[in-house]
C-alpha cells in the first residue's frame, strides 16, 4: 500500500498552510523577540541574549510546577484513555440509544472552560454543593471535604473535574473509530470463533489506532496546557499545590508584566510539549506498523 508519489498534492495542502501560517508565524516570532529582550515600556528594551532562559530554567518553582504538570498529564492519560475506550465499546450500535449517548457525552465538552471551573465550585462547595454536602454527610473523613482545605482534596477535585470534562472526548473519538470498522471484519472473527478479547486486541484496537493517536495527543497537549478550569476552581492553591505550569506562567508573564521571562518560559514550555507529543506520535506509529506486519 505505497502512496502515489505526486508533488502536485502540494496544491491541495497549500490553503491549509497559508491559513495556519498566517496565525502561527508572526506570533511565534514576536514571542522569540520578547524572550531575548528586557522590556520595560513601549519602545524601551535592551537585548539580553539567553539571560531569561537561564533564569527560568534555574527557577525551582518552575521545576515544582513542571513535575506537578507531568503527574497531572500522566494521570489524565492513564485514566481517560482506558475509560473512554470502555465507554465506546459499551455504547449501543443502533437505535435511539446511540443518539442519547452521543448527545449526553457532548454536554461537558460544550461548556466554556472558565464556566467548568465555576460549576465544580458550586458542585463541590461543602455548604451548597451536592458533592461536598454528600461526602461530608457520610462523616467518614477526619477533615471535612473542602477543596480549599487540603492539597489532596484539591487534587482529587481537579482530577474529578478533568476526568468528567474530557473523558467524553476520548469516548466520542473511539466510538467514531469503532463505527468505521467494516462488518466483514467482525464476521471473519466470528467464523474464526474469536473471543471478545481477541476481537478487541486484533481487530478493534489496531483499527482504532488513528483516532486513538489523535485522542492521546489531544489529551496530552490540552492537559499539559490546562489553565482556566483549575485556575477558577482552586486558584492554584492551597499553597501552590495545584499551580500547574500555565497558571505559574500567567503569574510571571501577565500579573507581573514581565514579557521577557514570560516569553522565554513560553518557548521552553512549547518545546517540552512538542518533544513529548513527538515521542507519543512516533511510538504510536511504530506500534501500528508492528500490529499490521
Amino acid at each position, binding site marked *: 500500500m505505497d502512496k502515489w508519489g505526486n*508533488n502536485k*498534492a502540494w496544491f491541495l495542502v497549500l490553503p491549509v*498552510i497559508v491559513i495556519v501560517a498566517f496565525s502561527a508565524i508572526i506570533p511565534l516570532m514576536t514571542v522569540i523577540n520578547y524572550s531575548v529582550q528586557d522590556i520595560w515600556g513601549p519602545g524601551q528594551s535592551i537585548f539580553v541574549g539567553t539571560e531569561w532562559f537561564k533564569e527560568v530554567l534555574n527557577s525551582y518553582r518552575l521545576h515544582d510546577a513542571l513535575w506537578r504538570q507531568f503527574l497531572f498529564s500522566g494521570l489524565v492519560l492513564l485514566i481517560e484513555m482506558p475509560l473512554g475506550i470502555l465507554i465506546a465499546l459499551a455504547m449501543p450500535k443502533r437505535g435511539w440509544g446511540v443518539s442519547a449517548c452521543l448527545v449526553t457525552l*457532548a454536554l*461537558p465538552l460544550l461548556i466554556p472552560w472558565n464556566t467548568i471551573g465555576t460549576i465544580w465550585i458550586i458542585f463541590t462547595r461543602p455548604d451548597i454543593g451536592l458533592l461536598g454536602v454528600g461526602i461530608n454527610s457520610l462523616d467518614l473523613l477526619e477533615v471535612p471535604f473542602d477543596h480549599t482545605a487540603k492539597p489532596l482534596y484539591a487534587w482529587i477535585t481537579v482530577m474529578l473535574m478533568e476526568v468528567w470534562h474530557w473523558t467524553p472526548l476520548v469516548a466520542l473519538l473511539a466510538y*467514531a473509530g469503532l463505527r468505521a470498522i467494516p462488518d466483514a471484519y467482525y464476521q471473519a472473527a466470528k467464523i474464526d470463533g474469536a473471543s471478545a478479547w481477541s476481537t478487541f486486541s486484533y481487530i478493534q484496537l489496531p483499527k482504532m489506532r*488513528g483516532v486513538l493517536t489523535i485522542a492521546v495527543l489531544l489529551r496530552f497537549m490540552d492537559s499539559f*496546557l490546562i489553565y482556566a478550569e483549575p485556575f477558577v476552581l482552586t486558584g492554584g492553591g492551597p499553597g501552590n499545590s495545584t499551580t500547574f505550569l500555565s497558571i505559574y506562567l500567567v503569574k510571571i508573564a*501577565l500579573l507581573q508584566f514581565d514579557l521577557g521571562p514570560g*516569553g522565554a518560559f513560553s518557548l521552553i514550555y512549547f518545546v517540552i510539549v512538542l518533544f513529548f507529543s513527538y515521542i507519543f506520535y512516533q511510538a504510536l506509529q511504530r506500534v501500528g506498523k508492528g500490529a499490521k506486519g
Partner: protein
Amino acid sequence: MKVKKKTIGLLIYFGILVIPIYWMLNMSLRSNADILASFALYPKDITFVNYLKIFTDSSWYMGYVNSMIYVSMNTVISLSVALPAAYAFSRYQFVGDKQVFFWLLTNRMAPPAVFALPFFQLYSTIGLMDTHIAVALAHCLFNVPLAVWILEGFMSGIPREIDETAFIDGYSFPRFFATIFIPLIRAGVGVTAFFCFMFSWVELLLARTLTVTEAKPISAIMTRTISATGLDYGLLAAAGILTIIPGVMVIWFVRNHMAKGFALGRV
C-alpha cells in the same frame, strides 16, 4: 448476562456525567440569595429571573449571537480547507509531507497566555480587531490542524481501489471527491465538524483578546458575573445551561453520520 453488565456500567457512567449538569440546572432556576442561603436538592421556588435577564439584556444575548457567528465561520473555513489537504496526506507522497503533517499539529502546542499578545498586535495592524472573522481566523490555528488529522484518519480507512475505479470510470477529481468520497467518510466529517464547533465555542483567551464590544463572545461576557459582592451563581448557571444548547443542536444533526460509520460495498 454480559450485555446486561455493559448496559448497567454505561448507565452508571452517564448518571455520574449528568449530575454536575443537573446541579447547574438546579442553580439556574434559583435566585442567587436563595442559592447561598440553603442547600436544596431541587429548586423549591422555581424562578426564571436569571434566564429573563439573559434574554432581555442585549449585552448578554448578543454574546450568544457573536459566538455563533464566528464559530460557524470557523467550522466552514476549517472543513473546506482541511478536506482536500487531508485527502492529499492520506493518498499522496510528496516532498515534506510527514514534516508538514506534524508541523500542523505543533500549532496546538503553544501556551496561549503569552502568545495571545502578538495576536492583538497582528489583528490590529491589519484592521480586523473586534470582527467575527478575526476570531474565526485565529481559531483556525488550532482547528484546521485538528480537522486535517481527524479527516486523514478516516480517509486512510477507505481502500484506494475506490478512487482508482472512479477515475477509470471517468470521474473528474472534484466530482469524485464531492459525490463519492465525502459521502463515504461522512462519519469523519460529522466528527470533525463537531470538534471544530466545540473547540471554537469554548475557547476564551484568543476570542477575548481579539474582541472589544462588537464581536464579544458569550464566554467572555460570563466572566462579568463576578462582581464586588462575589459570583452571581444563579445567573452564571443559567448562562452555562444556555451555552450547551447550540452544540447539542450540532451534534443532533451529525449524530446519524457518526453512528452509521462506513459500510463497504455502498459504492
